[in-house]
C-alpha cells in the first residue's frame, strides 16, 4: 500500500531531515512513527500527506509515486487520506458541524448526503450533541476528536496523524487512542507520528523509529489488525 525507497529530504538551509529511509506499510496496519523531537517524524508525515515532496527517492502510495504526481493531482490524492494535525487546523469561525462538512463540500456531495455523513462522523467521535457548538467552547480533547471526525468523514483508507495526543490530558488521550483503535479494527491503515511512549504498549503497533532523519529499525512489533 505504501512503499518508501531510499527517501531523502533536504531543506534549502542544508538541513537533512530524512536520510535514506525505506519501509513498506501494508493495508490495515497500525504504524507508529516514533523518535525524539527533530528526528524527522513530522517531515515523514508531511511527505506521506503529500504536503511536501521528497528530495530524492520514491514514495509510492497505492502504486502512485507522490514525488512524481502533478500539482493538480495532489488534492485528489489527499481526499483518500484522513489527516490529523498536531495543531488540529480547525476553523474557529465555524461550528463543529461546518468543520466536518468542509471535506464533503470539497468532494462535491449533495447537502443531504454531506449532512448525513458529517453527523455520522461526529457520532463516531461522541460529538453529535455538540454539532452547533462554537469551537471556542470545546475542550482540547473535544477539538482533537472533532479533527478526527473531519479526517474520517470522507471514509479514507489511510489515516495519518501527527502527534495527536500532544497537549491532551491522560483521559482525553485515552479517548483518542480508543477511537484510533476502533478505526483500525474496521480496516483503516493508521500511521501515527508520536514521541509519546505511553500508548505504544497499549496498542502494540508496528514501530518505525527515526533518529536524526534515519530509520533505526523497522518491521518490529508487526501487528496486523485483529
Amino acid at each position, binding site marked *: 500500500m505504501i512503499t518508501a525507497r531510499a527517501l531523502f529530504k533536504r531543506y534549502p538551509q542544508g538541513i537533512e531531515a530524512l536520510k535514506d529511509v525505506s519501509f513498506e506499510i501494508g493495508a490495515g496496519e497500525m504504524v507508529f512513527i516514533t523518535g525524539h523531537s527533530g528526528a524527522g517524524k513530522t517531515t515523514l508525515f508531511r511527505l506521506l*500527506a503529500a*504536503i511536501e515532496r521528497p528530495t530524492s527517492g520514491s514514495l509510492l502510495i497505492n502504486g502512485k509515486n507522490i514525488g512524481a504526481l502533478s500539482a493538480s493531482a495532489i*488534492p485528489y490524492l489527499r481526499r483518500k487520506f484522513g489527516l490529523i494535525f498536531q495543531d488540529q487546523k480547525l476553523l474557529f*469561525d465555524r461550528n463543529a458541524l461546518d468543520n466536518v462538512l*468542509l471535506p464533503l463540500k470539497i468532494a462535491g456531495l449533495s*447537502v443531504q448526503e454531506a449532512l448525513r455523513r458529517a453527523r455520522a462522523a461526529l457520532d463516531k467521535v461522541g460529538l453529535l450533541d455538540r454539532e452547533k457548538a462554537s469551537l471556542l467552547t470545546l475542550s482540547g480533547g473535544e477539538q482533537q476528536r472533532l479533527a478526527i471526525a473531519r479526517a474520517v468523514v470522507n471514509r479514507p483508507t489511510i489515516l495519518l496523524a501527527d502527534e495527536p495526543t500532544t497537549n491532551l490530558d491522560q483521559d482525553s488521550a485515552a479517548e483518542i487512542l480508543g477511537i484510533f483503535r476502533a478505526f483500525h479494527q474496521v480496516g483503516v491503515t493508521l500511521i501515527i507520528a508520536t514521541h509519546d511512549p505511553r500508548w505504544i504498549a497499549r496498542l502494540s503497533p508496528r514501530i518505525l523509529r527515526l533518529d536524526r532523519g534515519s530509520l533505526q529499525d523497522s518491521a518490529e512489533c508487526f501487528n496486523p489488525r485483529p
Partner: protein
Amino acid sequence: MKAFLAQHRMALDDAKQKLLASPLSAVLSLIMIGTALALPVAGLLVLDNLRSLAGGTPQVQQISLFMTASADSEAAGEIEARLRAARPGNWRFVSRDEALERLKLVEGVSEILESLPKNPLPDAFVVEPADIRPEAVENLAQVFSSWPNIAHVQLDSDWVRRLDVFLRIGKLALFMLAGLFGGALVIITFNTIRLQILAQASEIEVARLVGATNAFIRRPFQYFGLLQGFLGGLFASLLIFSGSWLLSEPLDDLVALYGAVWNFHGLNFQTIAGMAAIGAFLGWFGAFLSVTVHLKKMG
C-alpha cells in the same frame, strides 16, 4: 455533473454571503465601481444625444440653392425636375416674393427693403438631405453647384461638420477614459480579493489540506468579483438613469427655445445589460488575477 453544479451553487452562495457580511464595504465598492462605469457611459450618452440634436435641428442639415437673378419659372421647373430625379431628401421651393415677405418680418429690415426699387432676392430651393453625414451633404452640394441657373449653393452644415469632428474626438477621449476606469475597476477588485484572501488564509490552508483543488478555492472569490462588478454595472445604470431623468426636461425646454424638435434619450435595455456584463467581466478578471497571484504566493 451534479457535483460540479452543486459546487458552483455553493461558491455563488459563499460569494453572496461575503458581500452581505460587510454591507458598508460592499456599498462603498459598488459606489466606486458604479461611478467608474457611469462616467464614460454617461459621456457617450451625452455625445450621442448631441449628435442626434445636430441631426434633428431645422436649418442645420439644409442646403440652400440660390438661382441666378435672371432665372425664370421655366428654369425653376427644370431644377425641380432634377431634384425629383435625384431624390436627395425633402425639398421645397422658396420664391423670391416669399423670401421677401419673410425678410420683411425681421425687425429693422422692413424699411430698407421698402426703399429698394425692386425685389433683390432670387428664387431658391431649400433641400433637407436624407443622408445627413457631413461628407454626403458636401457631395450633394457639389452636385447642385454644377446645375444650370444655380448662382450659389449654401451649405448650412459647416458647424455640424465641426461638431462631428468634436464628437469623434470626444468619443475617443471617452473610450480612453473608459479604459482607465476599467483598469481601476480591475484594481479595486484585485485589492478587495487580496484582503479577503489574507483574511481567509487559514481557511484556504485547511481546505487545501483536506483535498481542495485550486479551482475550488478560486471559485467563491471569482464569483464575488463577478457579482460585485455586475451589481456595480447596475448601480452605474441607476446613476445614469437618475441623471437623465433629472436633466431631460430642462434640456428639452432649452432645445425647444432654439426651435429644435428633440428628446433627450437615456439608457436602453441593451446598454444597461452591456454595462452589467462589462462590470461583471472586469470584476471577474480582477478576482481571477488576484486569486492567481495570491494562491501562487501561498504555495
